[in-house]
Every structure is written in C-alpha cells, then in structure tokens.
C-alpha cells in the first residue's frame, strides 16, 4: 500500500472537512450503486512476494535465440539508455504543460523531432504516436485532411497488422481502402499505377517492406504525384534509415512507422514508438504533440508545446486527431540511443545486413528457396516444403526461427520471414544452420 494517512491524521482531516467518516464523503453515490462487499481480487503481496510471483510468471515465457522481426526488432540497448531514461525526473513527470519545470522533457522531444526529421528526410516530425500501425493510420487521415480526398491505396507488402489497423480506421472514418497485391515480395508498380486516380489521397508503401525487400520508392512516389496524391512511406525497422537513402530523398511526402528498434525493448509488442514526419506544408495538420522553440521572460531560449490550436483539448471535435498523450518515454529512449550510437548507426546497419546475408546464403545452401532477388536489409523471406516442422523442431531446441507467413498470406504456408540483428552472432547463426541441417536430414 502506498497511502500514508495515519488514523490520527484521518480524524483531524475529517474534522476540518466537517464529516463524521470517510464513508460520508461518498454520500453522492446512491445506495443502489454503491458496492456492498469486497472486491474479489487476490490478496495483497509484499514487495518480495510480488517479485517472486511475477518472476515465476516470467519463467512461463521461453527465452529463445530469436530470428523474428516483423515489426519488432530486438536490438542491443546500450546501458546509458536504461540509466538515463530511468531517471525519475523524466519518467514520473507528465506531458510538459508547465514548461518552466519541464525543459528536460521539452528539449529531449525537440531533439527527438529533429533526429526523426533528419533520418527520414522530412522537414518536421511530431513528438511521437502510439506505434507503427496507428502512425500509418494517422498519416493517411492527415493526407486526406490536406487534399480533401477519401481513398487510400495500400501496398500488399505493408505489414499485415498495419493494414488491419488501417482497415479499422478507414471503416470508422468512412474512408475508402484499396489494396494492391505484391508480386514476388515487392509492390506491383504497374497495378499500383493503375489504381491511382484523382480520387486517391495517398499511396502507402513500406520500405524495407514486410517481406524484407527494398521497394522502388522513386517510381511509386512518381506514380502517386502524377495523380496529385501523396506518397506515404512506412518504415518498420528504423535501423534501416542508418544506411538506406532516406524516404524524403526518394520522393516521400509523409514518413511514418515504428521507432521501437531505437533503444526500446520488444516487450511483447508494447509500448512501441510511432514515428510521424512530414514536409512542412503539413505542419498545421499533423496530429499529436509538437515542441517548439521560444523565449522566456528574460529573452533566454526555451521550449514549449506549440501549435496547440490543432489539438483536441482546444479544438475538441474539430481537432486534427483525438491523440492526447504520446509515447514520451519511448521517444526519450530513442533520442538517447541515437546520441550514444551516433553515426556508428551506419556501421551497425551494415553489420545487420552482412549477418542477414550470411544466414540467407547458408539457408539457400541447405535447401531453402529464396522468394526474390530484390535487395533487402536485415530481413528476408525464404521457403522450404518442411518449413513448419523445421521451425517446430528448432523451437524445442531454443531457437525461434522466422515468422511463418501462411496466416498472413494464404498460399505462403512454406515461407518464413527471417530477421537477423547484431544480437545474433555468427556462432549462433552457424549453430542454427547446423540444427537445420540435422532436421532436414532427419
């Protein structure tokens, strides 16, 4: 229990209030509603008991050598990220309404906005959204607010969960959703071009896409722009921005996606970090918090939440979005991560790619088929007629090898989406491949 009013104090306080009992303070709750008995919850645990109990629950999870990405990337987190973001002046504060005692959060978010804008090649970025999926959905709504059109054209190689969320949001907001199938793991540019007309607000494509392949963003952006539509590029693996040409350079108008890979754990899928960046013409339409630079009463530089006239607490039903909080602490972790790793991010990205290419080559050597020859970053799709049983055998030996794609793409039951990060050492990859060889032979 974390309350600390003693019985003596309670009596004094009730005296000041002029009430005979605490119960009297609840008098406005009608008798018919007031709870009679006690809640049926498990009994209270001491701190030590709680830690043991939760530890036992944790041991029901199996910690494995993981080769799965698919929107959550298990990258190494430098110690400084945990230490600094764990300072309670950061994590026990709230949205920086009182700027004078919130410069720490405000400056960190301003730096985050700067880094996201730079990495994506955009002019501005917001202070974060919930996750990659909702960032895409919000990007589409922002595009529609800007050009007044109601239809979105979506690549079938966008993360299936993101597509599901977009469908939910499109239905809810009475927008039209149109999906263009992929061809051998890349967006079909011809079909895409045919789907775009002047009713289309925007085109959404992921890069690297869900299958791990790099898309021809320049061609897709050109197709979108020729019909006056926006090109939205979604990035689910932010580390790819460390090495690839940024989406802005390739013609994107809005870049959104998942920033978890920057200093945040996979954490069973949440909290994640929704990134949203855009060209400056979207500045007054962007959802979520924005931090801007200003001056204090002495003329000193200071930072403050700004352009709040867009937001729900001022504009209510005419706001750009209903978003209230962001993922402040995850954004803080991302900015610390990016400062610690700095431009070594490129080296780290190269390492991820090299080891992914090494595993892919070894898998092809032991009988896996590649899905395509498209270039990839740290994730790729391969197939094997015994993929399901191989995976099962590996799980028993402590390897979580790839995501089976059959649930997401009917007909792809033999395909696995495999991811390699710096946490997968060459020794671990070799061991994995030797186990696969045993299973293939056996």
């Amino acid at each position: 229990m974390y309350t600390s009013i003693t019985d003596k104090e309670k009596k004094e306080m009730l005296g000041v209030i002029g009430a005979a009992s605490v119960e009297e303070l609840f008098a406005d709750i009608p008798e018919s509603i007031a709870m009679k008995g006690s809640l049926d919850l498990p009994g209270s645990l001491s701190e030590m008991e709680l830690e043991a109990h939760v530890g036992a629950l944790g041991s029901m999870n199996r910690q494995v050598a993981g080769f799965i990405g698919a929107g959550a990337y298990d990258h190494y987190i430098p110690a400084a990220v945990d230490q600094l973001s764990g300072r309670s002046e950061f994590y026990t504060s709230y949205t920086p309404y009182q700027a004078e005692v919130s410069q720490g959060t405000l400056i960190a978010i301003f730096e985050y906005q700067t880094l996201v804008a730079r990495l994506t090649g955009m002019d501005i970025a917001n202070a974060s959204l919930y996750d990659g999926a909702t960032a895409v959905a919000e990007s589409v709504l922002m595009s529609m607010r800007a050009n007044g059109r109601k239809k979105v054209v979506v690549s079938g190689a966008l993360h299936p969960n993101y597509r599901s969320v977009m469908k939910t949001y499109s239905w809810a907001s009475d927008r039209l959703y149109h999906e263009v199938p992929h061809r051998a793991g890349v967006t079909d540019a011809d079909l895409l071009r045919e789907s775009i007309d002047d009713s289309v607000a925007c085109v959404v494509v992921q890069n690297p896409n869900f299958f791990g392949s790099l898309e021809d963003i320049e061609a897709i952006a050109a197709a979108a722009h020729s019909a006056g539509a926006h090109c939205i590029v979604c990035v689910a693996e932010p580390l790819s921005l460390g090495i690839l040409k940024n989406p802005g350079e390739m013609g994107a108008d809005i870049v959104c996606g998942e920033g978890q890979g920057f200093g945040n754990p996979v954490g069973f899928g949440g909290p994640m970090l929704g990134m949203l960046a855009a060209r400056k013409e979207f500045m007054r339409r962007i959802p979520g918090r924005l931090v801007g630079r200003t001056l204090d009463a002495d003329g000193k530089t200071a930072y403050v939440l700004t352009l709040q006239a867009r937001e729900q607490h001022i504009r209510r039903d005419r706001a750009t979005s209903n978003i209230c909080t962001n993922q402040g602490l995850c954004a803080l972790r991302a900015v610390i991560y990016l400062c610690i790793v700095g431009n070594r991010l490129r080296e780290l990205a190269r390492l991820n790619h090299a080891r992914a290419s090494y595993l892919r080559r070894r898998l092809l050597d032991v009988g896996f088929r590649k899905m395509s020859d498209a270039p990839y970053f740290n994730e790729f799709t391969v197939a094997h007629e015994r993929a399901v049983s191989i995976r099962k055998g590996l799980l028993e030996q402590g390897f979580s090898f790839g995501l089976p794609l059959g649930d997401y793409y009917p007909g792809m039951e033999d395909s696995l989406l495999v991811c390699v990060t710096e946490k997968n050492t060459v020794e671990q990859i070799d061991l994995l491949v030797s186990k696969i060889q045993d299973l293939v032979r056996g």
Partner: protein
Amino acid sequence: MDVIFKHSEPGKNRYQIPEPGADDYDPIPGKYLSDASPLPDVTEVEVVRHFTNLSGMNYGVDNGMYPLGSCTMKYNPKINERIASIPSFAGIHPMADPEAVQGCLKVLHELAAYLGEITGMVFSLNPAAGSHGELSGAMVVKKYFQDMGQARHVVLVPDTAHGTNPASAAMCGFTVKEVPSNSDGDVDVEKLKEMLDGDVAAMVLTSPNTLGLFDRNLREIADMLHRNGSLFYGDGANLNAIVGKARMAEMGFDIMHINLHKTFSTPHGGGGPGAGPLGVMEALAKYLPVPIVAQGKDGYYLDYDRPDTIGRIHSFYGNFLIALRAYAYIRSLGPGGVRNIAETAVLNANYLLASLKGLYHLPVERRCMHEFVLSDRDMPNGVTTNDISKRILDYGFYSPTVYFPLHIEGAIMIEPTETETKDSLDAFIRVMAEIRREAYEEPEKVKNAPQTTPVKRVDPVIAARRPVLVWEG
C-alpha cells in the same frame, strides 16, 4: 541549456560496434544507399551529462506533489519498474509462438479479469492510451448501430468533458452536441431530455465528472439513454475516485475505458506511454478489438476468430509492459488496498477543498470526490489563474490543471491523489494561502512568477507565430 547538437564535432563518437564476422554476400546496390551523417557526433560522457542535466530541469512525482487535476499523478512504485525491465518479459517478441509466451498471455488474461471485477465489464487490453480506448469505444458504438441497422449520427458530450471525448467521436463520423451542466455541476437533465431523439447514438460522461463530482442523476441519465435506444459511454479517467466503492457497470454505463497510468499507477513518462483498456457490457463484447487473450485446453492464446469485432487497432496487443506494471500494482494492493485508493484519494481531496475554499473562489459549493475545481474569480489586482499556477512552481510544487474544465472561467483543478501525506497537503495549503496574500499585498511577485525555475515564464506566442520544430544549426 544547449541542445546536444551544439556539442557535435566530427570524429568525437567512439561507440564500438562489433565486427560483422561475415562477408556481405548480397551487397545493397548503391542507388539504395545514402552517405549522409544526420546524427550528432558526441562522446558518451557528453550524452550522459546532457541528459542527466536535462533531468534536473524536469519535475516529476518523485520531486514532490503533482496536483495536476484529472491526470492522477500518484506515486509510481519502484518495484513495478524493476518488474517491467526483467528480460523474461521485456525481451519477449510479440510474434513468438504462443507456447513460448504463456507468461505474457497469463498476465494479460488475469489483468483483464481484475479490471472486469473492478468495473463489471469485459475488457480488451489493446488500446495504447485513454484516447485510443475512447476511439475504439466510439467504433464499438458505430458498429453496434450498423448491426442494428440504425443510422444514428449524434454523440452527446457534457460541457465538462475532456477534449478527447468529442475528438474521438468526430473521428468516427459522429456529430457532437454539447449538454450543459446545471449550477450544481451535474448534467442538466431537463436539457438532456430535450436533446434525446432517434439520432442520438450515445452519450459520453466521465464519472465522477471533471469537476470532481459524482453526478447525482447518473442512474436517471442512464435510464433515459437506454429508453432512447442509445448507449452510455463512461470515460474512466476518474476511476481513481470510485475504485472498490462502485462499479461502472452498475452505474448504467455500457462502454468504458480505463487509464491504467492513472488509477493503476504506471508512470506517465513525460507524456506516455499509457494504456487505455476498453471495457464493455457482455452484450457488446463481440465488438471488442482483436486479439482477445483467451484460455483454451492447451493454455492461453490470442483469439482472432471474432467475426463481429471492430478489428485490430494496434500493431500488436497494446502496451504490454504498462499492463504488466498495472497487474503488479493490483497484486501488491489486494482488494482492501484497491478500495483504500478511492477512500484516501477522496479524503485527501476533501481536506484540501475544505482548507482552500475560504481562500479561493469555489464555483460549485459541494463536497468533492478525488478532485475539485477552484477559480481566479475573486483574485485582486488582475492576478490570473496562469499567474497563480506559475507562482506555485516557485514554491516547489507542480501546478494544478488550469483553464479546464472549459465552462469554468479561470479554472484551477486540483487532484492530490491518495499517495500524498498530510504533511505535503498542509505544505500545499500554506503555499496557496501565501500566494493569495501576495496577490493582495505584492501582486507583482505573482505576476512575474516563476523566478526560481530553470527558465523564467515561457512565451508560447513566439513559438506558435514562427514555429521552429527542429534544430537547424
């Protein structure tokens, strides 16, 4: 303080990346690559000092009382942070096989059951924030009437509502109409009666409301809505006041969300991440967002086979590590501790109210629940709510929520929470008394506040007039 970019010099960063140990078998073609260097080039020591010093310019619950009304800034137990960082939870991949994540699924399943016991509803833990829960709730309303074959376009929202309420409804295509409050701070039932017709899909009400008052006509409002075929949405932002004392289901609500970061004490993180589980009455459970954690004969699993669902609303399953903290909080408190939350929160708030109402104008003269609203109406010498809130910072407290709810001019909304000691409440009372004295005798002190903070009063107008949102050197 300078931004980190000002320390950047080429070649400073010495962070070591391991050797790949493998050749690149499929080099990425040059046309896909960039050689830009967009990140700061600084040393680890500089990074550590920068963010340590930034933290010193921040104020959190661990620094002192944070009476930010409607945000429930209570103490965040340290053990919950430790629990959320253990690798057997933090390191679990969301796409891993169900048999490898039974611990995570069990936590989610049990937490949903606890929330069900506390409120009387059935829960989906997918929404990542209160506003996200609200949006999903508005989608449930939409889906329900679509299934009923009824075109209802209006969502009613009281003038006391959080801004997210109308914004969430509008995102689902509803027209929002505002219901006025009466002078006692309750919904004006007569006005509501006039507004109810076949076009009203739902009404949203925070309970207790944002004046910190329990609406005395709540059951009557619920009955009126139900007779009209409308749904009643409960914004659970203020659940802290009633947890263990009354259930939202029994108040007549059909749908609600809970802000886990408020009532169940997960840290607010400088503005998130939160979590906003969505609860509905059994009859609406089929509409809940997917997946739902279910229990089968082979253990827990993620159930997607729900044909009437509004659909998926999150990349994965919501903010799991936040849910884990809330789970730990409920387990540490037990049933008595949970009830004690509400009792102590309401006691603390009423003690502050009784002590401050002679000093500041109290727009609605009633006992409160977990929070209450004062105003600057009677302040002399042109001292405003904004001035008072800035002066409070000088005395080492965070400020209450100001200028909300909107229908109270110059509102000052105070929520102490149950984790404040009587000593800190008394210290806050003394500060508020002193600021009132200053307003009469030395008003410039209040109008020029704050003076002791890392920066002086910040000008929001300059920021909005020519927005600078990124550092450009």
